[in-house]
């Protein structure tokens, strides 16, 4: 079982091991390599077969939980000691501090919106964008055009005891999920994509490895919500018979054997430090 740590607390060795495993998955030429994860996110951002899996839906949280578990397992093929770290943006709010240091994620884009110039993912030779919405083959960032969520806003979102509510999409005004996802205020998830900018603001956002650190933090916050309100299946909504979304016991494609119910309790797979 893995322990997911705060990125700011990783040792130099742990940071190097994560970067190395990510780059090996990127270099993999067969199977579900790094670019498979980029493409899968693009495909499942939209509805597939009339069902919204990854976004604008209750399964936003369980879909990304499974997505991170799969990605983490793929990294562990190369280094069993690696876990995904999380970026707590209520604490680390600088464009130059953790995790945007030269020994980890690297910094801002050149000129404020161009290719990043520092760190192991700077430049197309180190990290080539193969599946992108723009012709840029280098990873880009345009940091700071929004305000990162505050600890107070996190507390307010986690205080919603109801998981989600009709109409179960991006217009839901009640429940925790749409506030966490960020189509309703306070916006926790979306605004962080906007704050990083560049590839992180695009449909192909997993091209930026900080995607995983951000979503690890979102998953950690859901885990905190579950600790407060319950890990049991009754806490996930909708339970059944709701069209267009993934009910409690319906498959989370593209993983046909996984359901929201099966990922609610993550403690046998990983914990948060």
């Amino acid at each position, binding site marked *: 079982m893995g322990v997911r740590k705060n990125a700011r607390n990783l040792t130099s060795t742990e940071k190097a091991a994560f970067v190395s495993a990510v780059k090996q998955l990127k270099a993999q030429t067969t199977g579900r390599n790094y670019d498979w994860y980029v493409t899968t996110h693009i495909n499942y951002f939209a509805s597939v077969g009339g069902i919204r899996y990854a976004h604008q839906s209750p399964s936003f949280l369980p879909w990304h939980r499974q997505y991170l578990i799969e990605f983490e397992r793929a990294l562990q093929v190369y280094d069993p000691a690696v876990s995904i770290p999380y970026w707590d943006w209520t604490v680390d709010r600088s464009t130059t501090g953790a995790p945007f240091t030269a020994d980890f994620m690297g910094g801002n884009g050149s000129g404020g919106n161009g290719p990043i110039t520092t760190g192991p993912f700077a430049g197309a030779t180190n990290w080539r964008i193969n599946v992108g919405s723009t012709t840029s083959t280098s990873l880009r960032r345009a940091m700071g055009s929004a305000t990162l969520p505050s600890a107070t806003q996190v507390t307010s979102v986690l205080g919603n005891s109801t998981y989600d509510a009709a109409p179960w999409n*991006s*217009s839901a*005004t009640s429940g925790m999920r*749409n506030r966490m996802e*960020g*189509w*309703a*205020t306070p916006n926790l998830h979306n*605004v962080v994509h906007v704050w990083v900018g560049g590839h992180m603001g*695009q449909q192909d956002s997993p091209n930026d490895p900080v995607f995983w650190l951000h979503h690890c933090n979102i998953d950690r916050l859901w885990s905190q919500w579950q600790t407060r309100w319950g890990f049991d299946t009754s806490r996930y909504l909708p339970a059944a018979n709701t069209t267009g979304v993934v009910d409690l016991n319906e498959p989370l494609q593209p993983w046909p054997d996984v359901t929201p119910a099966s990922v609610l309790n993550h403690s046998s797979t990983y914990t948060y430090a």
Partner: protein
Amino acid sequence: MSKMNRRDALRYGAAAAAVIGSAVGAQILATSSSAAPSPTTAPADPDPRDFELDYRGKKIKGAHGKAETKHSHQVHINGRKLAVMPIELPAAADASGVSLGFISALNHYEPVLIDEDRNKDGLLKLARQAVDALGDSELTALASTEHDHGR
């Protein structure tokens, strides 16, 4: 669609839409029929909100959806198509129903409101943001693919 009564609207009024632009002026679908333009027999009539101009060294062109396709807005940057997709959002705090935002392949987590009133420049704002994100790169075919966000 959710049917919110007045009590619910007050109760959940704090959950305003997290969008760019003024939520107060957002087009509310529930009342959009009264705000819709009169049917016209001249399909060539340009929408006064349409634009074709240079911005930061790139040619941006925007055409607003007409009549029954009024939510199918078109944006091209240097002649390349940028997919623009509608997404339902919570209504403004002082309204009921839903408001309609738009995201693009490049501005995927930051919906803009587009209407004929306070947010009439929404599509231009979206196009400029896309150019800001592009920098010296151009759109790829992937950016032109529209997809359904479950309206």
